[in-house]
């Protein structure tokens, strides 16, 4: 294998895991953008999505596409439900209470999953097999599908946020909650919508994750969630394009570290990035810095 084709394969790997990170990071960033909450339960929503795929395909023998749809729907509803039950009552509480609650919800989901699904990992049957050989580069269909689905989701999200009424309301609320209310925008509806959209993206991410790694386990969401969080911070938390860029950068960085033979250092390098970003440029690559004119 030539160096070039090795670089290309690693790039594809990086883009594949990067697009999953990006989808998950979007949920972190959107929620932070609107209520300044680091929703640490976000990663665990992915885990629930993965189990939905597993049970839909094995216990109910549903076709993969139906399983995927069910997972996305389940994640969307779960995200909106968590927001209603756990975060809405704390709307006027200090931010720290919200953060602690988010960590609590995360523990609840992880331990609840262990109780219900068992602590061991479940093998999810793969449903995107094969690949294509181009020169001496082997492209698996999973990688191709993952990258395409992620990019398509981001295009749809961008349209939603930029052009639709609810999307514009989201931007208005995230910029100035009080002024948005004075426009007649309902905070509760807009915030629920944001959680639902972020969780739907997590649902898509969970399916793509399962395609890549073929396993569901109760704690799978925590590492994925943490890395996506790093991606969101790197891109500039609160920024939607930032989350996309951050996700891809983290994915590519992991691939690079693996390619030079330091795969055991992968996680460490990602968290080192977090430390460096927080030290050097806490607002991230595209963090919001709007100077206000008086």
């Amino acid at each position: 294998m030539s160096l070039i084709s090795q670089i290309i394969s690693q790039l594809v790997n990086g883009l594949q895991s990067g697009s999953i990170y990006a989808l998950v990071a979007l949920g972190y960033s959107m929620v932070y953008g609107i209520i300044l909450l680091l929703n640490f339960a976000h990663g665990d929503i992915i885990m629930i999505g993965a189990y939905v795929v597993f049970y839909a395909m094995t216990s109910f023998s549903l076709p993969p596409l139906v399983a995927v749809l069910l997972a996305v729907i389940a994640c969307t509803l779960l995200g909106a439900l968590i927001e209603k039950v756990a975060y809405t009552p704390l709307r006027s509480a200090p931010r720290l209470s919200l953060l602690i609650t988010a960590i609590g919800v995360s523990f609840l989901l992880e331990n609840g999953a262990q109780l219900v699904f068992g602590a061991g990992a479940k093998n999810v049957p793969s449903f995107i097999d094969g690949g294509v050989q181009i020169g001496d580069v082997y492209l698996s269909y999973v990688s191709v599908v993952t990258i395409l689905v992620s990019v398509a989701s981001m295009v749809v999200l961008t349209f939603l946020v930029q052009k639709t009424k609810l999307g514009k309301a989201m931007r208005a609320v995230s910029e100035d909650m009080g002024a948005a209310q004075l426009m007649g925008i309902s905070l509760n509806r807009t915030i629920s919508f944001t959680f639902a959209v972020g969780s739907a993206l997590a649902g898509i991410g969970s399916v793509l994750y399962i395609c890549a790694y073929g396993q569901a386990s109760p704690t799978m969401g925590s590492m994925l969630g943490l890395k996506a969080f790093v991606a969101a911070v790197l891109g500039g938390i609160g920024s939607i394009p930032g989350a996309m860029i951050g996700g891809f950068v983290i994915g590519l960085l992991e691939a690079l570290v693996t390619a030079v033979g330091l795969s055991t250092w992968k996680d460490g390098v990602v968290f080192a990035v977090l430390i460096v970003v927080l030290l050097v440029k806490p607002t991230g690559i595209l963090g919001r810095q709007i100077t206000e004119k008086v």
Partner: protein
Amino acid sequence: MLKVDNINVYYGNIHAIKDVSFEVNEGEIVTLIGANGAGKSTILKTISGLLRTKTGDVILKGESIKSVAPHKIVAKGLAHVPEGRRVFLAMSVEENLEMGAYTQPASSIAPNMQEVFQWFPRLKERRRQMAGTLSGGEQQMLAMGRAMMSGAKVLLLDEPSMGLSPLLVKEIFEIITELNKRGMTILLVEQNAQMALSVAQRAYVLETGRIIMQGSAAELLNDDSVRKAYLGA
């Protein structure tokens, strides 16, 4: 049209508004004047629902709105142009105006926007620009235009002259007068008491959360204590 009846508003333990009552009749411009921290903005925020009163009532067109959510008050025909304009800086002028029409049917947006552009031609020139790139005066126009998009019959204006050049202040106040002539009921909060009293029909003077004086704008303009305290004469 709008009646504030014996409200008491608190920030935590701080008693910010004390037993305040006043009324704005249909077609009037009424102004609340007073020094910084007297509670003027707090009263407006209480009317538009961002803050809550512990006692009394806020009545709009005969209906109590003191427990109505702020986003529902807009739909009842009351728009609040907040202090410091608070336009959405990362959104375009057009998008800001669309947000103003959030409670309105989509079909009303285009005609309402044309009307706003007639009032403020400068906004039309800058319709695709981000609001954050506008000058202070343009942002004030946008904030007012945005409120007008809601089809409101009552407008609460909080310090529209703040930080503007004398020329712009004059322009904004001409528009306020003209809006009023065309039927808009206006509650105006101002530190620029001279300007406010010159356009208003009636006025209330607020000091540390209490109304200490009221009367026609002309009376207050000629009142010695008002002149000393608020008009620098």
